[in-house]
């Protein structure tokens, strides 16, 4: 009896149900964001005539932010590791059947692809940096002088971005012990959520740099100081409606995938039905419907539709809402997934 009591305290025998804390949703969010930024940047690079040089929010700022976000995300993933010093071992092997292995190699390949995309048009976007480091101009010239390299960079970015976005969802859906995550829809769901957050982020940056009379004076001051420091040319506001409408499409796909995800669970076994109940009527229902569906998808869809119809000005609000909603989606799915289980008695 005593022994039983003691062993029940042992975390290696008694399963701990919520082992993933804030690090995983943060990583999933940033990973999805970077995947989205890569796809948008890759496509923009492919569409652009190679010899044209422009200051581009999609092709330069996007990948630069992507590099920073990816590093942050990988750092939070690293924080989650139980044996931090063993992280290098992931790169001594490649296991075809392990999503973790796929992920760690994809993450490694993402860096050069993102960097190539960022460097191609960097001298135009941030002239101050280019004049200080002439090597940057050389690299940019080197890339842009070779149309095939540009093509390759664009394709690689798109493909790796899609892989990264899908992999963040597959990472969850392969964990069979959690019925809520047991859905292949999670891959595309996270991909499109990542795409929507990426489009929203770029749209937000464009909105920030657009001339506006209502901006508080201190924000104007900060922005103009930043522009002076980087000698950056004004970004092309013509991309804003394109990004907003792309974001609307991504959000629409995302909400349909969410519907499919829930539908699949509700029409599956009783266990999956119960797992979906966590989001539909259970303890996660209110945060899920309010934060993810309401504030994260429906409101920005409405606002961006009004923006595109020229009913209201382009504002920062939809961009912030979409990013917040994307983050909330990961937090709620990771948390609710860990609350779902096959046997209620195990609770």
């Amino acid at each position, binding site marked *: *009896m005593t022994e039983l*009591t003691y062993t029940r305290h042992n975390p290696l025998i008694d399963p701990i149900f919520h082992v993933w804390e804030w690090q995983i949703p943060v990583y999933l969010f940033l990973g999805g964001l970077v995947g989205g930024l890569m796809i948008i940047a890759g496509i923009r690079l492919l569409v652009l005539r190679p010899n044209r040089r422009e200051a581009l929010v999609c092709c330069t700022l996007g990948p630069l932010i992507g590099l920073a976000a990816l590093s942050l995300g990988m750092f939070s993933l690293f924080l989650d590791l139980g044996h931090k010093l063993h992280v290098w071992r992931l790169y001594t092997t490649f296991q075809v059947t392990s999503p973790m292995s796929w992920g760690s190699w994809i993450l490694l390949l993402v860096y050069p692809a993102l960097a190539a995309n960022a460097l191609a048009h960097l001298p135009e976007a941030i002239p101050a940096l280019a004049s200080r480091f002439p090597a940057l101009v050389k690299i940019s010239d080197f890339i842009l002088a070779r149309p095939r390299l540009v093509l390759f960079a664009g394709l690689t970015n798109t493909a790796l971005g899609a892989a990264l976005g899908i992999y963040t969802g597959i990472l969850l859906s392969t964990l069979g012990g959690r019925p809520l995550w047991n859905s292949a829809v999670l891959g595309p769901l996270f991909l499109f959520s990542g795409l929507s957050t990426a489009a929203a982020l770029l749209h937000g940056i464009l909105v920030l740099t657009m001339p506006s009379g209502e901006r508080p004076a201190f924000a104007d001051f900060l922005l103009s100081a930043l522009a002076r420091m980087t000698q950056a040319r004004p970004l092309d506001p013509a991309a804003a409606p394109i990004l907003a409408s792309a974001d609307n499409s991504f959000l629409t796909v995302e909400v349909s995938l969410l519907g499919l995800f829930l539908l699949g669970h509700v029409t599956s076994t009783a266990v999956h039905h119960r797992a979906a109940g966590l989001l539909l009527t259970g303890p996660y229902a*209110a945060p899920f419907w309010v934060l993810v569906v*309401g504030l994260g998808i429906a409101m920005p869809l409405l606002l961006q539709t009004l923006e595109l119809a020229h009913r209201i000005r382009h504002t920062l*609000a939809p961009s912030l809402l979409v990013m917040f909603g994307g983050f909330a989606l990961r937090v709620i799915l990771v948390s609710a997934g860990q609350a779902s289980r096959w046997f209620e008695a195990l609770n």
Partner: protein
Amino acid sequence: MYAPFYKYGMFGDEVSLIVAFVIGIGFGFFLERAGFGSARKLAAQFYFTDMAVLKVMFTAIITAMTGLYLLARVGFVDLSMVYLVPTFVVPQIVGGLLLGVGFVIGGYCPGTSCVSAASGRVDGMVYIAGMFAGLLVFGEISRPLEGFLYSTPLGQVTLPAFFHLPYGVLVLAVVLMALVAFAVAEWAEKKTTGTAPDAEGSLTAMPWRLTPVRRLAGAFAVAGVLAVVLGNPYRGNTVEVDTRDLALGAARAQPLAPAKLADWIIQGRNDFTLVDLRTPASYGTYHIPGAQNVPLASLTADVAPRNQTLVLCTDDGAEAAQAWFLLKAEGFRSVYLLAGGLNGWRDQVLYPKAGPETSANDVARLSQVAQYFGGTPQTGVASAAAPPMPVLAPPVAPPIAPAGGTAGPKKKKEGC
């Protein structure tokens, strides 16, 4: 299908939050469209240059009032289930003045400050920060102020009850008051700004045509007159007993696990009334903290407002079923039976049994709960690792826990 939906159990807490979100977004959207996200617009009210706030708010009041009246009269809304904030005359006047001062200084009321902050205005954000700071301060000082906060109580009072007027007459009076207020507001705007009001949106402007605004005003007046004719919207004193519903309902009388009741009490929830149906003598010996003693014989519909959640308890639950039937017939919607009665309370809360399969966490929680209510500490966490866990049978006590059981809760009650 009857409203209020939440009180009739059409959805639970989770869904009610989602409904609140949808209503809140809609409310905010229309406030913003009306221009109420701007402090200038709101402050213009106090200079009589733009009386939009008065017009919108008064319109909202008479829309809700005539709407509620008509829906209740048709039988769709059960007015007795609508929650009314209890009135405390002096504290609420003081609170109203404080709110007014804050309104004049900050240029917003709480609702419009949210709209303003959401539309990106920095002053609105500052106002919200101030609001939360104020709430925090009030939370800290509300305990010493309790005597004042609950002074001059009138209970849940309505204007018809207060003035002893028929409900419909009051509806008409408020509608007329609103229409007069709109006319006076237009006059004031004209005086202060010197410009004639826009003929299309005006109630009083001169070439007399039947504009939409006037049609709306007419509709309100008609609704008011109808209210006078149609009479009382309350269901009144007659009780309609739906025997089929009752018979079906009796089979699934809502039992409430003692552990859950314990949680409610510990959380300090005040949205339910715990009714102890035993004799005053047994009530005196031991009762669950916060319980109200209403012996079964003297139980009437006046025990609580009908929208209140009731939890009934007796010794073993048999009499409670009788009371449940009675209250259900009287139209109470959420009446719970304490599962197992006070015996269940004793076995599951005060002296819970912890078997070998109970996890250590649960044992710790159970013993904490038991200690909160003055249960014996033998069930305590200290014994979690000790062998005699199965021996933890409840001490054989007269009807309910002796000294330990009574002294504990009383002490707690004073503390709360």
